[in-house]
């Protein structure tokens, strides 16, 4: 790949997905785009780049999808799901006792492992949630991974990474070499295609937002902008869950870390219903 090609693709991915590649990620682009080139019946990456440069929307969309990472497994990192069970849900069961309704957003739902892991956590809580209405909305940039999530079909390899065997037995049906999430669990998830760079206020309010391992690919201004728009969808007693390598600290004060709960944050009560748009959001929104 020539340096001008690399710069061209960097800018393309940045503009379309917010993906912010540093100058040394040629290997990443090559490893993702070569399989795509072959899938498209092209000889190699140069041909694919030619298609992209000629403005082929179809190729641009597929390239952007191929670059957004979908590496995920059930109960990934485990700790966030412990937080969900031991901290988030007990607090919200009290705080929302009158309403008996909860809305959860998986902002990078990917191929479904995270939303289904949450659905399994909820099922494991059993009677504590009787009479409650719990919505899980899974969004992703990529329509392709959302389709996989909706189908809820996973390979033997995928169901063995992070998923306890008891959960596999309880919440999956075996079909040949594949395992499919039970219809009951699948019906708990609503899927929507969504680009976090765009307005997402139409999704409504949330009590819990899982936004893990997606903002790491964004530059600082974009991160701040997303955090501030997230805060506007959440009440002060809601919870934001970030990936292990992510933080709001030093970026925005719209969220504050929960002490001793790695990756867990709460809004700072700056919900902009009263028009109190944080300064950083105003700057980023003008981009």
């Amino acid at each position, binding site marked *: 790949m020539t340096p001008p090609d690399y710069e061209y693709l960097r800018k393309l991915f940045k503009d379309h997905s917010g993906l912010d590649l540093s100058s040394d990620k040629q290997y990443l682009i090559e490893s993702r785009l070569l399989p795509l080139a072959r899938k498209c019946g092209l000889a190699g990456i140069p041909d694919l780049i030619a298609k992209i440069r000629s403005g082929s929307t179809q190729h641009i969309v597929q390239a952007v999808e191929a670059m957004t990472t979908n590496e995920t*497994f059930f109960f990934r990192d*485990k*700790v966030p799901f412990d937080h969900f069970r031991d901290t988030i849900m007990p607090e919200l069961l009290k705080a929302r006792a009158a309403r008996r309704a909860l809305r959860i957003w998986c902002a990078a739902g990917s191929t479904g492992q995270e939303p289904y892991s949450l659905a399994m956590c909820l099922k494991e809580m059993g009677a504590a949630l009787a009479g409650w209405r719990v919505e899980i909305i899974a969004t992703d940039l990529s329509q392709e991974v959302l389709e996989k999530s909706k189908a809820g079909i996973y390979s*033997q*390899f995928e169901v*063995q*990474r*992070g998923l*306890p*065997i*008891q959960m*596999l*037995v309880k919440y999956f049906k*075996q079909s040949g*070499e594949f395992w499919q999430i039970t219809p009951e669990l699948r019906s708990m998830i609503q899927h929507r295609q969504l680009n976090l760079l765009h307005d997402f206020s139409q999704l409504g309010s949330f009590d819990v937002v899982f936004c893990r391992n997606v903002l790491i690919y964004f530059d600082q201004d974009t991160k701040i902008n997303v955090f501030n728009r997230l805060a506007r969808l959440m009440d002060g007693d809601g919870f934001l869950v970030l990936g292990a390598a992510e933080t709001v600290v030093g970026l925005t004060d719209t969220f504050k870390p929960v002490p001793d709960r790695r990756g867990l944050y709460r809004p700072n009560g700056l919900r902009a219903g009263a028009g109190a748009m944080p300064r950083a959001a105003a700057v980023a929104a003008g981009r």
Partner: protein
Amino acid sequence: MKTCLVVDDSGVVRKIARRILEGMGFSVIEAEDGAVALEACKRAMPEAVLLDWNMPVMDGFEFLVQLRRLPGGDQPKVVFCTTENGIDHISRALHAGANEYIMKPFDKDIVVAKFQEVGLIALDVPAEA
């Protein structure tokens, strides 16, 4: 150092498992069938057992049943590792006291994930490659 007993009639599988487990910091002993494994457990209970299902002399399921009846036999974490990938086999194994279940083919990531799941290794300590 924790000990893991690897029970499999395939020397190749035992070798692969040994390499993975030693990389995770386990001391490994091997047995080629359930009967040999049971004798090893009577001498000294391991912390973990990685257990094939189909083997000559005594299969993995029978070994598990016998192990759980031994004094101290409730202690080892038993992780099946077998080509018996049907839900019926998995359910039987869990009822008989298996702690986890790996469907072959397996790799290091799966072994690490399953051993974390049953508390044999810590979450935050990634195994050496």
